[in-house]
């Protein structure tokens, strides 16, 4: 799999504050990657540099094999949901998306169907002609998500995409984003770790402007090599409430084989199984990686 995004030794300072310190990571093409970190870790700065809003002090970026973001080279290839960017309020979603779609180079014949499609994806088809000023915060957020997906860009940057959405809308948006897997590369910055765990196949954890962990979600959470078996009371003699099974690198068995063997062994001892869970939660991993971090 080729990389859609490669960051190498990015540095960015705001006065005395070192926002990014030799930040490096890659995002494989077609993956949905979560960008995680505590407040002030440098997530939004990273997104802004990738999108060309900010210039790095040093380091290199390769976006879609075309070098750093360039509005000419990357025309129509990159969509972004910027954090805290306010929509112009006098226009309607359809008018805004039409203006931005034309700037992206979407042809006249495909523009209207493309607008209908993205507004439908964010469940705003019925408010397409309402002035932005009359839309709620959540609806405005969905308009910005629609703008990021307009024209089916090859790379989409989403900064807190479900912030301000109600649970049903957030669930729907996650389904929409999951549908992009394999076709579009998506980099999502969010504090909602449960959401990222269910959606992303890759994760990058940054703290104090550095990458402290990156890899496949299953590897980061340990879902491919770790199982926790929780036992129900009464416990057989010699057993505690939970049993953790970790596969070592030289173990020839698959996780399923090892888990089955362990369960057979526990049942033979008279244990009753309450829960079997693979890996740790992403939240537990991130908290461990960023322990003691101060924003």
């Amino acid at each position, binding site marked *: 799999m080729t990389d859609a995004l490669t960051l190498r030794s990015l540095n960015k300072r705001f006065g005395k504050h070192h926002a990014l310190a030799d930040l490096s990571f890659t995002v494989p093409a077609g993956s949905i990657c979560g960008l995680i970190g505590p407040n002030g870790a440098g997530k939004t700065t990273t997104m802004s540099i990738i999108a*060309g*809003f900010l210039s790095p002090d040093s380091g290199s970026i390769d976006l879609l094999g075309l070098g750093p973001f360039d*509005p000419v080279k990357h*025309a129509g290839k990159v969509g*972004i949901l910027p954090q805290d*960017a306010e929509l112009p309020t006098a*226009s309607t979603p359809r008018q805004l998306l039409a203006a931005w779609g034309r*700037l992206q180079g979407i042809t006249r014949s495909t523009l209207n169907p493309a607008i209908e499609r993205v507004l439908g994806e964010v469940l705003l088809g019925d408010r397409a002609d309402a002035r932005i000023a009359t839309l709620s915060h959540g609806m405005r957020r969905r308009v910005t998500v629609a703008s990021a997906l307009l024209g089916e860009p090859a790379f989409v940057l989403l900064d807190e995409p479900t912030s301000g959405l109600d649970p049903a809308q957030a669930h729907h948006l996650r389904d929409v984003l999951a549908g992009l897997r394999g076709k579009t590369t998506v980099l999502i910055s969010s504090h909602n770790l449960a959401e990222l765990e269910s959606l992303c196949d890759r994760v990058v954890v940054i703290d104090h402007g550095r990458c402290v962990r990156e890899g496949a979600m299953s590897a980061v959470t340990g879902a491919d090599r770790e199982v926790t078996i929780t036992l129900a009371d009464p416990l057989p003699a010699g057993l505690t409430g939970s049993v953790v099974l970790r596969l070592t690198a030289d173990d020839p068995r698959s996780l399923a084989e090892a888990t089955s063997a362990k369960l057979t062994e526990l049942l033979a001892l008279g244990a009753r199984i309450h829960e079997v869970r693979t890996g740790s939660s992403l939240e537990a991993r991130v908290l461990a990686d960023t322990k003691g971090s101060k924003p």
Partner: protein
Amino acid sequence: MMRAVLDTWWVAAYELGEAVRTRLFQLVILAYLGGIGFSVWLFTKILGEAENRLAETLGVPATSHPGAMLPQLLQNGDVRDLLAPIVGGTSAADALLDQPALGLWVGIFSMGLLPAVLVFTASGTVSAEVKSRSIRFLLVRTGRLEIAAGKLLGQLLLGAVAALLGVGLAWILGLLMMSGNPPVDLAVTLLTRCAWSCLFSLPFLGLALGSSLLIGSPNGARVAATLAFFGMPALNAILTFKAGPGFVGQVCDLLTLAIPTRYWNEFWSTDPSVLAFASGRSVLLAVVFFAVGFARFQRRDL
């Protein structure tokens, strides 16, 4: 290159479309039209007074509808005397007086009001979008030059829309409130003066947009552009006073060339070569002011 031109046009269309839907712009247009309407009313009042005085002198009945005795007033030089100090002398006034006087009068107001309108609307446009970060929706779609140039073109189109609405209003009021106004000649004069007003306003537009590109805060950009606009006559006076031999004098002399208000009279000339030169210089000044702001905008973190 074609793509850049097309993007500039789309940004301009976006700017125009977004602005005409905002209440602020609608209020500014109303204020401009109010100013033009006031100028027509004032003209008819002054003309009516002058005509009534002439009627009294001649011992004929006073008119209730101004304009009937305008040719007589033109002959005895009253209108020329009124026009001369504004357009840069009696010869310039004489050359203009074969055109409808109302068209010239409205042109004077238009040349005063249109730069003010553009300074007000253009000085906040980019900085407001930078502050709200809505500019990021554009930055990911096109280049910074296309955005800035599109904003310049969009604001120019807004100014042109305002000026054309003013022409329409002045034409209608002129025909309703005065007699003896030839409709076609009045329309031609108003449209011609409208074009010169737009060209005269270009450096002010460049100055306001340059300020908006240069300064991050919308209020800061507006204050800077407004101070520059209203401070221009004073600056011109200071620079002209200091101009002369020596390094400082020569620098002052050079700087006076960048003061657009100095070139008011040239836009009243009837000599095509003077008008062409004045127009070219206006475009150049607008580009210079814009370029100063853009040089900063191009490198800024947004």
